[in-house]
């Protein structure tokens, strides 16, 4: 079984600081990590290889420094990795990103499964996984929380949707996007870290994946960001302090009154 894992390097956005003046992200000291939701995709791929044998190839589109994300994927257990990096790839929206990734996947060929995280924590769109499937004319199962009964031709998946879960059987090759419930991602071992450090990671540009540069990066992106601004949130908050018995009592009375006035209790 040959699995391709498209992953993304993202800024560690858990505690992003914003420049109040410019409304832009403070990038100094912000670490780049593998998109946390991609770790679940990596873990699923590793488990499927343990059960069925085969190989796992991690790919990512990004600047040369995105190689670090690929090394982390290899340290978790992926067999090899390919960096997709080209000046013409910069500024890509989800359409142009899906295009480059699908061209690279075509170039690799012979795959049974393409497994993606549900979405990246920076862009938060979740559009690239289904987009790759569309470019490659493959079926796609999204929000997958379990995979079983794998044969040469098909597998069964469980999809976590709004009001329950669905079971599907889907032909291979297919694209899967997975949710957190799939499995707990493992930590890299010392041995796999060493292997990852030594691994040579090829870098493919537009020509290597037969990409039309009119369709890559900003040039190939149908969408344009026209404005960025700080979200405005404000209501008139009636704020009272509740620190001792008297004020706590008064605050509780106010709360109950607030509800009663609005017929909420």
């Amino acid at each position, binding site marked *: 079984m040959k699995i391709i894992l498209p992953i993304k390097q993202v800024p560690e*956005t858990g505690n992003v600081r*914003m420049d109040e003046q410019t409304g832009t992200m403070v990038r100094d000291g912000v670490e780049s990590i593998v998109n946390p939701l991609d770790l679940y995709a990596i873990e699923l791929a590793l488990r499927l290889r343990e059960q069925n044998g085969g190989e796992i190839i991690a790919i990512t589109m990004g600047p040369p420094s995105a190689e670090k994300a690929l090394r982390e994927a290899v340290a978790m257990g992926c067999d090899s990795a390919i960096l997709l990096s080209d000046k013409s790839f910069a500024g890509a929206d*989800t*359409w142009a990103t899906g295009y480059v990734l699908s061209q690279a996947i075509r170039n690799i060929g012979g795959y049974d499964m393409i497994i993606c995280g549900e979405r990246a*924590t*920076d*862009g*938060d*769109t*979740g*559009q*690239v996984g*289904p*987009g790759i*499937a*569309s*470019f490659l004319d493959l*079926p*796609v*199962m*999204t*929000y997958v929380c379990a995979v079983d009964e794998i044969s040469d031709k098909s597998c*069964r998946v469980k999809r976590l*949707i709004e*009001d*329950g*879960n*669905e*079971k*599907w059987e*889907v*032909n291979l090759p297919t694209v899967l996007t997975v949710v*957190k419930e799939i499995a707990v991602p493992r930590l890299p071992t010392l041995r796999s870290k060493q292997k990852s450090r030594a691994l040579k990671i090829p870098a493919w540009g537009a020509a290597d994946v037969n990409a039309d540069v009119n369709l890559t990066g900003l040039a190939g992106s*149908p*969408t*344009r960001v*026209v*404005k960025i*601004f700080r*979200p405005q*949130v*404000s209501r*008139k*908050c*009636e*704020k*009272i*302090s*509740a620190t001792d018995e008297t004020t*706590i009592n008064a*605050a*509780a*009375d*106010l*709360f*109950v009154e*607030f*509800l009663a006035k609005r017929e*909420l*209790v």
Partner: protein
Amino acid sequence: MHKNDDYKGVWILAEQSAGRVLRVSYELLTRGRELADKRKTDLTAIIFGAAFDDCDLQQLIECGADSIIAVEAKQLEHFDVEPYSACMLKLIAEKKPEIIIAAATTTGRTLMPYVAIKADTGLTADCTVLDIEPQTGNLLQTRPAIGGNIMATIKTPNHRPQMATVRPRSTKPAERKADRTGQITRINASSDTLTTRAKFLGFNPDESEHGLQDADIIVAAGRGVKKATGVETVKTLCEKLDGALGASRDVVDRGWLSYPHQIGLSGKTVSPKLYVACGISGAIQHLAGMQTSENIVAINTDPDAQIFRVADLGIVGNIFEVLPVICEKLDALKRGEK
């Protein structure tokens, strides 16, 4: 590139489950009607399924659609990306809409990107505000970015249709006007659009996940609960108010409550009549999931907590001291005492 002027009309993608139109479809009608009026054009609701009742389709008209296109086939009973996208692409090629809005549900977030790629056009996910640029008529799509720390406004200037998904519950469903009329077109999906490589095997409803998004009252726990057992204090208030229990991401990440309780950018978006935030600091990611609630009460020890910026009533205090007193007062109220 597409010739923009050839594309006319606003579409919304209505959704069904077991043949019945889902609530989110009416929320989309609210959005769609606004855009269609600004563009002085028609609003069409498209819907895919096995078979529909006349009265369900009529209700979409009464809630703001000028016309309905219902594509019917047994293979469309459950959302399957291949036949759904084939049917939708065929409609797009025939009718050339300028705007398509869908819900950011598991269905919308799968179908829309699949279609956008093949339709060779842009798609913006999870929009919170949609508007029309007066000079150009372009759709302005505003969405949170970088974990909700900034808002970005995005355009699709040279491609049509302009496609966007919007978060469920981020707007109110359209109200019914019984005298509205419109045209309902039913289409039997042609066999060339129904091929698929997937087979539906079954559905298991999950009762435990119900409630949060339909609740009138939500009481949510934040990091201020300090430990797993601290959640109980919040739960007690929640039960007294007959509400649903929510949580910030911190609480879920620590395993004190399960993921279905999570409210915010990476969880659910809610818009109840009352939202009580207990020990929640109000990270922008959390605010993105609850700030459209009608009434917001926040209880937090930190007077500068961000949560107070979106609250109507703010109590600066310790939830372990304040909530029990509130519970006593609610009990007294129920017993008819003052």
